[in-house]
């Protein structure tokens, strides 16, 4: 089976590093291929395709899967990111050997028919990375060969398609709104959609609002964008909204407001690089958890908050403690070493501010007639915390 792409064949000139000492031929090597578009007379371009290194230990200890008798060719292509694709394949090595004098190639084809890259293949190569893919593009990969010097490509295997993700906002601005009744299961919604001749894959379409209704909903607002409203031009209104909701300085919303530079690592998405002063030698990494998140520590303080008093209604307490008692009418009374007035019947009242804290208050009465002394010590404390905080720093059961 052959396939013509309608484009001049491009050639790669792979430059393989020497095999490491003792390496078996079937261990994959990382090679860096240099792209040479000789057919178009262009200068050499830097790498797009590379084959991958494989840890040598893994395949030796992994049992091979049992065969079920069905001959299965594996050839897959994955989008890694908007600019990278990864392909791997498992092929019958006999196929290679049967045509070993032929020129085997790996080809990458975009949008069904555009040959984008081609790499000579060796028997030992089983996977490839391509790093110059175009975002939001359909790709498939092909493996095949050219017989001797012929330009006739014999296709042996074709991968399923992979679609690289978009890297910018869609140019499509249409607004289709749907109301999906939350109380109905998808099963019920599918039944309703089927009656309208709509497939379950596009279920939401069955509940799409008609354009006049959408227009009405979009203009029913308390918006401050007066100019757009006055023109009654829905799309100028939407532009105004989007200019606001997708700011370029990312101060309001996503850090993805502008397309992500493919080469810029988004460090905040990576993990375990936090705590830059953390000494790996001190803590073997196997003690760390698997986690896909990461955070980093910092030295500086965070931006100051608006004082809470300005934002919430105040709740302040002034607590007084009143101590009432009775002693001999002639006694001399001291509370916390302060002299206290005694009423004619010997009663007394003492009041003091009761702020948060621990108190130890000596109360001493001296009977001047009998020259006797009575002494008590009051112990008490007060702690106030925002309800319903627990008693300790961390909430306790």
């Amino acid at each position: 089976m052959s396939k013509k792409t309608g484009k001049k064949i491009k050639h790669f000139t792979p430059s393989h590093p020497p095999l490491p000492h003792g390496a078996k031929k079937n261990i994959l090597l990382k090679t860096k291929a240099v792209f040479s578009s000789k057919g178009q007379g262009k200068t050499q371009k830097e790498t797009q395709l590379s084959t991958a290194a494989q840890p040598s230990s893994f395949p030796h200890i992994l049992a091979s899967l049992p065969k079920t008798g069905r001959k299965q060719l594996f050839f897959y292509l994955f989008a890694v990111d908007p600019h990278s694709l990864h392909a791997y394949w498992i092929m019958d090595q006999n196929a290679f050997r049967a045509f070993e004098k032929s020129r085997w190639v790996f080809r990458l084809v975009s949008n069904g028919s555009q040959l984008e890259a081609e790499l000579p293949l060796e028997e030992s190569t089983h996977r490839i990375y391509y790093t110059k893919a175009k975002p939001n593009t359909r790709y498939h990969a092909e493996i095949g060969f050219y017989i001797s010097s012929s330009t006739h490509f014999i296709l042996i295997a074709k991968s399923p398609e992979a679609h690289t993700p978009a890297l910018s906002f869609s140019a499509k601005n249409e607004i289709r709104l749907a109301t999906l009744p939350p109380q109905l299961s998808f099963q019920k919604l599918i039944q309703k959609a089927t009656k309208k001749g709509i497939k379950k894959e596009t279920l939401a379409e069955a509940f799409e609002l008609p354009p006049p209704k959408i227009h009405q909903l979009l203009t029913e607002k308390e918006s401050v964008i007066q100019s757009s409203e006055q023109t009654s031009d829905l799309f100028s209104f939407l532009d105004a909204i989007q200019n606001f909701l997708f700011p370029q300085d990312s101060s309001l919303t996503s850090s993805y407001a502008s397309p992500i530079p493919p080469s810029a690592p988004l460090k905040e998405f990576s993990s375990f690089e936090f705590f830059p002063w953390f000494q790996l030698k001190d803590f073997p990494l196997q003690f760390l958890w698997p986690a896909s998140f990461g955070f980093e520590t910092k030295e500086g303080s965070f931006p100051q908050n608006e004082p809470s008093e300005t934002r919430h209604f105040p709740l302040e307490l002034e607590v007084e403690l009143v101590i009432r008692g009775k002693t001999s009418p002639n006694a001399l009374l001291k509370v916390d070493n302060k002299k206290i007035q005694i009423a004619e019947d010997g009663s007394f009242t003492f009041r003091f501010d009761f702020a948060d804290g621990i108190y130890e208050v000596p109360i001493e009465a001296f009977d001047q007639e009998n020259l006797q002394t009575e002494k008590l010590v009051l112990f008490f404390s007060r702690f106030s915390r925002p309800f319903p905080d627990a008693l300790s720093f961390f909430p306790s059961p």
Partner: protein
Amino acid sequence: MKSSPLGYLALLLHAHLPFVRHPDKEEVLEEDWLFEAITECYIPLLWILEELYQGAIRCKLTLSLSPTLCAMLKDPLLIQRYKRYLLQRIELCSKEIERYAATDPERLMLAKFYKERFQNVWKSFTEAYAEDILGQFKKYQEKSLLELATSSATHGYLPLLKNPEQAVNAQIFVAIESFFDSFQTYPKGFWLPECGYYPGIEFFLQSAEIRWFVLEAHGLLFSEPRPFLGLFAPIYTPSGPAAFGRDSLSSKEVWSAQEGYPGDPVYREFYWDLGFESDLEYIRPYILPTGQRKFTGIKYHRITGKTEQKALYDPKKAQERAKEHAENFIMKREEEIKKTAPLFPTFTKPILLCPFDCELFGHWWFEGPLFLKELIKKAHQSEILELTTPLAYLQRYPTQQICRPTYSSWGLEGYSKMWLNETNDFIYQHLHEAAYLLVELVRKYKNGNKQTVRSLKQAARELLLAQASDWPFLISKATAKEYAFLRVITHLNRFSELCEGIIQQKINKSLLEYCEYTDNLFPTLNLNYFS
């Protein structure tokens, strides 16, 4: 309830740990991952929920629990080992109190602080919760404080498992089934592991009656057509499930180097742990039997700064700072909503969805649970925003835009690089081959004799375990790399041997029993999900 908030804030905690259970070994370092998470994250989270509930504070949180985590939280062996772990820590704290009683009042105070904390954890786990943490989460879902969601069966990174499609189908439906086993109800929300989305995944979610999932910001923003309300509103995927975009700004405030709260100098230093600090002979009974040191959870220092001279931790100061950070966080969300709300049409209102790994709060960021509690309290007081859950929001605002999201994840550079690169790519060939083989064997043998079906089910469990996103992640990060390698190899080898037995119709009974005993999750696994 506020009469009319300008917008909504949805906090989502994703709780996940890989299935780590080694019944054939007395003590395994990696089992501590679960024990640390229970102690530092899940029980403190339950304390918060109880406190907020008792205080009549309006709380709406979304908690997605991975099926592997649920399986471990229910496992009698791991529960037994967890209690041993806790008792060891309480004992160690007592020793520390004795050690510092006369010499170091500051460390003494901290040792007492940890002892009281471990004792409270013990009391909650064994008495109040009757060793049933999932039951507690269920209770708070019933009280409408929580919306529980699920994730894929073993946290497989779905964009790289879609060959064959049955592998994705099984990851989703086994998860749904497992959720039902745990909570006797079906989830409406699904956490795509690592926010890993590829176009088409929503078809499976629709079949599973999943109403919402979460996308990384660019996954939603680069949708087609362009979502006109940006990240401030969900979209409906063409097949129905709604997608919410992660509010990157708030995530950054919690995680990033520049604005991240957890790096504040007064917070507790994660890496300085008694297990590594103290004399080997002293700590020996509390580390691995081989003498290999490990974390004990007793940490005396605060982050302090970029220095090796770490100051001692002051819980009160950290507590104050967590409150300030919570206030700051809410203030910023209010600002976002205040600016956005006037631009919104009246049929919907802005929502900010802030997802975090649950284990960030308490484990990595010790003060995280406190921050969370204060944040919820501040939100309760806010006149501008109200806490909600994705499902509650969709019930209130069922009219949204139809868009097709784009392939994305929240991993390195926003796509699949973390789970597919030159360090770990060799895994996928084996995973895909194995999945195809299983699909074929299920088709052929699912109506076979009892032992064949048992073997098929166990092979499916082994494959699911090998598919966990944790293994390529750990290999990629060179973190617990050997363990991750071993796990992939072990499960694939067990899978191979089980399949060999099925094909040859010579079931190795002892192998089957051993695998069933060791990898005992998903007891009611349904093979039809692979066909």
